[in-house]
């Protein structure tokens, strides 16, 4: 292992200009695989979703899944790509045990979608990421290397292969070089991956879950001295499996490559692996010894020639895309750019919109999701959307607050109950007895006790210092563990002491 000298980020960016490129693989959520009728469910028993075709048995032949082609065309259209009138699949030949045929059906020089773009925003500035191509391919099986230190095939005691994933439709989205992002490069990379995920999710063709591998990014980074016209040598970092990792991988590569260049060295063109634990990248196979994939047109499949009518039908079927939606929501809710960005970054846009649709005021929906619930998600290290609370629950809580039957403090206790699995907000209110107490009789006795316990303050109020009543209200709230109707308590205290 070579020791690497990292150059602090700001220093690196003072001297070098990064150029990025991102290749993203997205598994489509089709019911069946790309070239056979096998199911695609995630997490099934190994090797139970297989057949002669996806196992590459002798004699088996692929048949293209039309809904996968629909899916990729929709992604292409959402990315403002042109959909070509004619293209072919190609075979990418290489030997690996998780590839049943020892070639992957992919696309080579004739991708289905070309020349698109995706606009992303970082700190209020828009960056246009140009899309080179979007092409269709099949996923490989999944290897599990048992034993050995690295978890990779070399050095493993033995390996197991699960072919359930083999043949799942995979869309690869390749950007053109992303230039002139300066010190924002890591953020632009992350914003691109985030926006792409939102876009594909909105189109509804994949669940784009990076932690399950249904969206995977490879990040290319190179550096050139500021003012230079020729790009530097790039590395390709694989295994980048979260949005945060995309940002970290770019940042680390900038620091590492700057170190290599500062020392007068040369960046090696190679594949690198991102290490989640340390936030670093480590050297993989060098591109110089890279394999020759011997691409050639797949003779078992006929060319694809999507008709223009079909493409237009698919275009018309696209839902509202994230950028347009954000503009609309911003108008409807009247939120500032920064707040909207926070909402999007927190993955709360859908949740808030659904909460509003369930009857809550936008401001209340935002307040609960972005403050109370976001804080709890962070505490648990979970995604906001994965908390066991629904937009309908949040809408109900805000309705209870609006009608005055609970207050904010009680509402937080209601969420405690819902998150703890105690039931719906109404059930939690019922079980925990969380009701604002405004009844004169019940409050009256508490107030009498509070007045008796605080004669000095009571005297002040009697003497006309009405503001002093606040302290007594606080004492009432404390005594009722937050359940008292504070307004009513205040009225009653003043009534008792001044009348």
């Amino acid at each position, binding site marked *: 292992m070579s020791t690497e000298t990292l150059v602090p980020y700001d220093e690196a960016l003072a001297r070098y200009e990064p150029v990025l490129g991102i290749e993203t693989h997205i598994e489509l959520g089709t019911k069946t695989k790309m070239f056979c009728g096998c199911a695609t469910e995630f997490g099934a028993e190994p090797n139970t979703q297989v057949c*002669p075709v996806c196992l590459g048995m*002798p*004699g*088996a032949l692929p048949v293209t899944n039309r809904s996968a082609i629909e899916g990729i065309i929709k992604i292409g259209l959402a990315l403002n790509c042109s959909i070509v009138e004619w293209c072919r699949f190609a075979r990418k*030949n290489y030997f690996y045990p998780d590839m049943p045929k020892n070639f992957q059906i992919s696309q080579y020089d004739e991708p289905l979608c070309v020349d698109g773009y995706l606009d992303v925003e970082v700190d209020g500035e828009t960056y246009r990421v140009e899309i080179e191509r979007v092409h269709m391919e099949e996923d490989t099986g999944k290897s599990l290397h048992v034993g050995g230190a690295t978890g990779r095939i070399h050095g493993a005691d033995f390996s197991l292969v699960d072919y359930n994933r083999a043949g799942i439709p995979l869309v690869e989205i390749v950007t053109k070089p992303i230039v002139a992002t300066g010190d924002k490069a890591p953020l632009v990379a992350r914003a691109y991956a985030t926006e792409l995920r939102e876009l594909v999710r909105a189109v509804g063709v994949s669940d784009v879950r990076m932690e399950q591998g249904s969206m995977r990014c490879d990040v290319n980074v190179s550096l050139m001295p500021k003012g230079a016209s020729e790009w530097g040598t790039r590395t390709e970092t694989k295994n980048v499996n979260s949005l945060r990792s995309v940002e970290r991988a770019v940042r680390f590569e900038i620091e590492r490559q700057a170190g290599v260049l500062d020392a007068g060295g040369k960046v090696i063109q190679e594949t690198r692996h991102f290490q989640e634990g340390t936030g670093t990248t480590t050297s993989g196979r060098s591109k110089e010894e890279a394999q020759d994939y011997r691409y*050639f047109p797949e003779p*078992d499949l006929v060319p694809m020639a999507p008709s223009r009518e079909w493409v237009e039908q698919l275009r018309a079927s696209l839902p509202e895309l994230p950028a347009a939606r954000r503009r609309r929501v911003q108008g409807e809710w009247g939120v500032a750019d920064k707040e909207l960005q926070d909402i999007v970054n927190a993955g709360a846009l859908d949740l808030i919109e659904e909460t509003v649709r369930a009857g809550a005021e936008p401001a209340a929906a935002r307040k609960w999701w972005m403050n109370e619930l976001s804080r709890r998600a962070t505490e648990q290290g979970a995604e906001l959307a994965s908390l066991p609370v629904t937009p309908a629950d949040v809408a109900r809580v805000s309705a209870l607050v609006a009608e005055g039957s609970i207050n904010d403090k009680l509402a937080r206790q209601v969420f405690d109950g819902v998150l703890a699995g105690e039931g719906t907000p109404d059930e939690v209110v019922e079980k925990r007895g969380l009701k604002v107490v405004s009844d004169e009789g019940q409050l009256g006795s508490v107030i009498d006790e509070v007045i008796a316990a605080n004669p000095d303050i009571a005297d002040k109020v009697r003497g006309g210092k009405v503001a002093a009543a606040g302290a007594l209200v606080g004492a009432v709230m404390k005594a009722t563990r937050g359940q008292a109707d504070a307004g009513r308590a205040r009225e009653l205290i003043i009534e008792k002491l001044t009348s």
Partner: protein
Amino acid sequence: MSADIIKKSAAELAGLISSGEASAVEVTQAHLDRIAAVEDSVKAFTHVDPETALAQARTVDERRAAGEALGPLAGVPIAHKDVFTTIDMPTTASSKILEGWRPPYDATVTRRLREAGLVILGKTNMDEFAMGSSTENSAFGPTHNPWDLNKIPGGSSGGSSAAVAAYEAPLATGTDTGGSIRQPAAVTGLVGMKPTYGGSSRYGLIAFASSLDTPGPLARTVLDAALLHEAFSGHDPMDSTSIDQPVPPVVEAARRAEVGGLRVGVVKEFGGEGYQPGVLARFHEAVEVLESLGAKVVEVSCPHFTYALPAYYLIAPSECSSNLARFDGMRYGLRVGDDETRSAEEVMALTRAEGFGPEVKRRIMLGTYALSSGYYDAYYGKAQQVRTLIARDFDAAFEQVDVLISPTTPTTAFAIGERADDPMAMYLADLCTIPSNLAGNAAISVPCGLADEDSLPVGLQIMAPVLADDRVYRVGAAVERALQDRWGGPLLAKAPEL
């Protein structure tokens, strides 16, 4: 009875079975007896399964007894090339790398044979992965030509041709990638048909060269070939390259057997140097026969056919290098060197080194080279351009004539071992048949007599446009009828008794 039965055509046998004069079990048993009698000297089969065959025959007899309407070939036995998957028999493509492999599924052709009530006797020997023209490349030893046991039966469907020529079966399946049905048919005195590419399903056919492989029938008569063609052809949703069109009316054409007014083109480029005089003599006689039947024969030039052989030997190996990559010992078949110390990569390499024969390795290497970056354009790319030019030659020719004809092979059957060390000489056996594979059109070989110098069969090749399969049957049947009149019976009757 037995001796009578085995010499009958499939159409005749089907007639006997459907009229109740013979049972499917009797017919099957007669052929199993013949196999037992001659197989030691012919070696046409890699696997014979009498019990399964008789069980299938019994089912046909029972269904008929129950009054079910059965297909026109129900109860007729068939020899099945060992390149098609069969769920109830091993499938090896005559390769050591697949020895003993039992597929988990039936090929579409296999399924359709079963649905038609054909009785599968066993699997026939072939050149390993269909690569060869002599069946000498089988991992399980060569098959012998029933006309002369020292000669090759053609290849790669040599087990199928030998089985039918030796009366071990009235029908056989074959696959034709560069001539692998027509050439064996020609050198054993049979009818062999390569349908239009996409006219018969490749699903479950172990691939050699995907864009060329075509399943087709071998039989002793043109009508039998047409009946079998009809039984297993037609659109298959499991094969994307399968044509979604009705099967051309091949049986009707075989019965019609007339050529009056038909325009026949003799391919100028196929003849002369390198052709055996006896082959050319029989071919010219066939031309005269066609003229005497009222066909108008002209010479047609197809200038790019000369480049067909080199183009084929780039395209086919390129595809094969990729198609055969899956045989790596990981999931099925042979596995060599798995001693728990070697890596997966080493086990793959050892398995392939031991599992593949020399001709297969030669073609994998040729193809790997032709597809390599930096060579692709010069080899694979150029070959594809030649392929287009050959298809255009056919298009231009079929504007002038209805069918094209040529000798099927430049020579009659050669001796076993004669060309084993000379791949180029071996490749020349497919000189005349390859253009139709590259263009994907229909082509048949029908017997047209014996060469004077060796008394071995000569084949006449008849080629028609894509999806005009019926046309070659019509012409083939007319030639067959006229020549049999001349010979006083089928050509095969002249073959020595085994």
